[in-house]
């Protein structure tokens, strides 16, 4: 993974002070930061662009942070969403857990700690994507093998799959098992 790749984050907070603070801080760390002042605008922005992580304030006028999180996950399941709040409660933290928040951060927070959470979220997301890609690849290879064995052509449609073409097909039984 290219360490220099620009990481994109979306900050959704009704307080301009927080939006500016996070924009300044993360921009200096080579993040591309986009901001939205409410949940609706945040979801609309998320719908149009790709982000590696989203920071959402819990308490905003209009749509709440948890509703914003649910809508973001409806658009892209598993996308890391970090909830931030100056008013932590047991109920909202349990709701954040149920909605699949990546973390729940209490304001005021240390910027360095927030950066570590964002870094970890992006790293985990990259690993998940890598695992999904590998699973897809394995599924494709399995399909190709099934096709190969069923068709008996000795050729797969996928050039990445290397099969021993030198093996005479007559040496395979009906299940595709090599006969000695």
């Amino acid at each position, binding site marked *: 993974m290219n360490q220099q790749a620009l990481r994109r984050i979306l900050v959704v907070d009704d307080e301009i002070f927080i939006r500016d603070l996070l924009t300044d801080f993360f921009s200096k760390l080579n993040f591309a930061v986009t901001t939205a002042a409410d949940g609706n605008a945040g979801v609309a922005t998320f719908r149009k662009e790709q982000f590696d992580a989203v920071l959402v304030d819990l308490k905003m006028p209009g749509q709440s942070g948890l509703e914003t999180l649910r809508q973001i996950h409806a658009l892209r399941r598993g996308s890391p969403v970090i909830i931030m709040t100056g008013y932590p409660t047991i109920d909202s*933290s349990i709701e954040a857990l149920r909605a699949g928040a990546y973390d*729940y951060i209490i304001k005021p927070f240390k910027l360095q700690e927030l950066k570590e959470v964002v870094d970890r979220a992006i790293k985990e997301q990259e690993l998940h994507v890598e695992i999904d890609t590998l699973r897809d690849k394995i599924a494709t290879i399995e399909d190709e093998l*099934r096709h190969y064995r069923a068709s008996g052509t000795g050729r797969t449609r996928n050039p990445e799959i290397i099969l021993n073409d030198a093996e005479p097909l007559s040496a395979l039984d009906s299940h595709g098992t090599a006969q000695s």
Partner: protein
Amino acid sequence: MDAKPRLLIVDDELLIRDLLYDYFMTHDFDIAVAENGQRALSLLEKNHYDTVILDLKMPDIDGLELTARIRAKDGDLPIILITGYPSVESAIQAVRWRLDDYFVKPVNLTHLRRAVDTALARRSAVGGAKATLGEPTV
């Protein structure tokens, strides 16, 4: 999966263990109970479970500490926390540990069962993918 789902219930209160045992038994679960964290760990060492219901406050090992030890061995095992002493701190830890749910006692059993069903569905989705990775089925 046609076998009954296997549930491990960990709580130091006998009343809660009995209550959950009876309830899940009537809903066709295969259940084991543990009265403390050490007993839970030793059961987990020897047996396979599909979901763990865990009390937060126990005399020997705290539920979150137990979560850490369980997750070190099986990162995907569904864990549902129940507690009579909820706090923002423990709920935040539950978010960070990706626990499947967090319930405050007295627990609504229907809601708890729904959470177990959701956790089982998640586990079987992850397990299915793992099986594909481990053993190509051609």
